[in-house]
């Protein structure tokens, strides 16, 4: 896994609360057996017209959005389904972080496992960013800081283990596999009540 390094970016403002995973990537695109090609389907039903042409006034179709790496979203971003296609699509579009006041649990976990950083900021900072989103901010995960225009720095919370994994490039499955002895002894002490193959 590549290490998560500090970066600077403009913000793409998306001022909608409770943005669900059916909007991030509609279910009909989940029939794929691959992780690839999802960036073009991000926000598909809002981003393209009935003929499949990009709507020029939709924010993600504007040239300034294409170079940006941070989505500035409303409350409870990523609610709905467990589809990991949502963070995959955001990453493939070019995002590396999403800023909001809150994230849905499964989305947050899926995002962190794919190096898409969910950044929770206080409500006043969130409102301030939405008032003037035409700014560049700096994200430093190791320091857990978001540097705002003018050099003001705010701390953001992140799960300590997830942060280590992202900053150090630790592979979570490798970490679990190393605990094989503990898993084997748990299984020896807890015989299963079911056998799906019986």
């Amino acid at each position, binding site marked *: 896994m590549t290490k998560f390094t500090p970066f600077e970016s403009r913000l793409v403002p998306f*001022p*909608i*609360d*409770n943005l*669900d995973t*059916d*909007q991030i990537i*509609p*279910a*009909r695109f*989940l*029939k*794929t*057996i*691959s*992780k690839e090609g999802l960036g073009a389907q991000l926000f598909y*039903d809002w981003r393209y017209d009935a003929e499949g042409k990009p709507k020029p006034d939709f924010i993600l179709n504007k040239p300034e959005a294409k170079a940006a790496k941070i989505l500035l979203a*409303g*409350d*409870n971003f990523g*609610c*709905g*389904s*467990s*589809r*990991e296609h949502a963070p995959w699509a955001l990453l493939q579009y070019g995002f590396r972080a999403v800023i909001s006041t*809150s994230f*849905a*649990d*499964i989305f947050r*976990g*899926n995002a962190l*496992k*794919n190096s898409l950083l969910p950044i929770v900021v206080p409500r006043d900072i969130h409102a301030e960013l939405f008032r003037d989103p035409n700014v560049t901010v700096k994200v430093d995960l190791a320091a857990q800081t978001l540097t705002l225009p003018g050099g003001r720095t705010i701390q953001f919370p992140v*799960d*300590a*283990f997830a942060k*280590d994994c992202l900053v150090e490039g630790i592979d*979570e*499955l490798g*970490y*679990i*596999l190393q*605990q094989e002895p*503990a*898993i084997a002894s*748990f*299984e020896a002490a*807890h015989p*299963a*009540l*079911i*056998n*799906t*193959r*019986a």
Partner: protein
Amino acid sequence: MKTSDMKPRTIIEKIWDNHIVSERPAAPALLYIDLHLVHEVTSPQAFDGLRARGLKVRRPDLTIATTDHSTPTTPRSFPIVDKVAAAQVARLEESCKEFGIRCFGLSSHHQGIVHVIGPEQGLTQPGMTVVCGDSHTATHGAFGALAFGIGTTEVEHVLATQCLLQNRSKTYEVRVDGALKPGITAKDIILALIARIGIGGGTGCVFEYSGSAIRALSMEERMTVCNMSIEAGARAGLVAPDDMTYQYVCGRPHAPKGAVWDSAVAGWRKLPTDEGAQFDKSIKIDAGALEPMITFGTNPGMGIPITAMVPNPGDITDPLERDSLAKALRYMDLAPGKPLLGHPVDVVFIGSCTNSRISDLRNAAKILKGRKVHAGVRVMVVPGSMEVKAQAQAEGLDQIFRDAGADWREAGCSMCIAMNGDQLQPGEYSVSTSNRNFEGRQGKGGRTFLASPLTAAASAITGVVTDVRTLL
């Protein structure tokens, strides 16, 4: 430590504690998973991950697969027209064969929605940890299991190690006391909860549903309640097991038998929350005050009693919240301050992991029996599993549906997620017994009113949003 020395614990904490494989400082706990349910949509990339690393599935005997999401509900003798869906369904069957996982594929009599077949086969049992790459995994919480949805990376982790790295969730008691009035169902309880606390109200939490109204629910009704825990943002939701739970599990194909059964039940009886245990949050709902619930907007929290008026964005002070409501009403093409009752309906969908079990179909049939679907309304009844379908046919429910003018289909997720060709046309309105009303959820441009099977069936008869109590 003696049990008597321990501080009182909730059932959520007990199940958690029983499944800790290891706990290291500054890391999430490693949690053992007792049952892993797999379906075609969220697993192919996980199986590819195993192949890339040369890993096997650690416990195929604790894993079960089925096809449900992109699966057609047309007769099984027909080929899958959608080539991409056909390839995904075929890939699941191939992967299961390669890794030694039992799969209830399209030709199986046990095929069905993953959250219907687990309980049906007796695989879902009290005290278990259950996961699936699907957010409605909380359904299995009805048995007093800690059951939650996971992403594809975690599906790969569980396939490879039967474990997950997890942080403890907060505990949230949802206490529902009193007796439901006629025409009010489990679906109305959960829609009322979500309308009260909002779709982010349970974020970071696991619900325990308790109280006399929950105790009075059948196992299938408890599944309906637990199923939509995610729509309130909760990771999971459960109901402590009781004699009704044991009665439901007993005798099912994978239920323990003989002396093993007796010792299992003895263990399950220790699961309910201890007297004096503390929850991080709690809420009380009066079941006797509930009306049939229906959603009007584009998330499941936008719900009202069916006799109420559509809310007005002008009454909301928070600008983002006001805009969200206004946007939802524009999408739904509904006027604020007006009733939903009497609003025309194009499609009625009875099905999904929320409401596709035999008791749901019996409820719908009770309303449809001897009546006709309103002219111009398309009604789809989709059983949750092939076993539910067989049971319904044995009871003659299929004939009631057909006589009324409804379409009786094969098992699957169908128009809940609209991946399989069953979908709304742009602008159409549905009354749906499913769980999500997000924009385009049931087909691009489609508009969804979520409600109970009773409300759905009543609206099918009249062709407009209808209070079922007028037809009882």
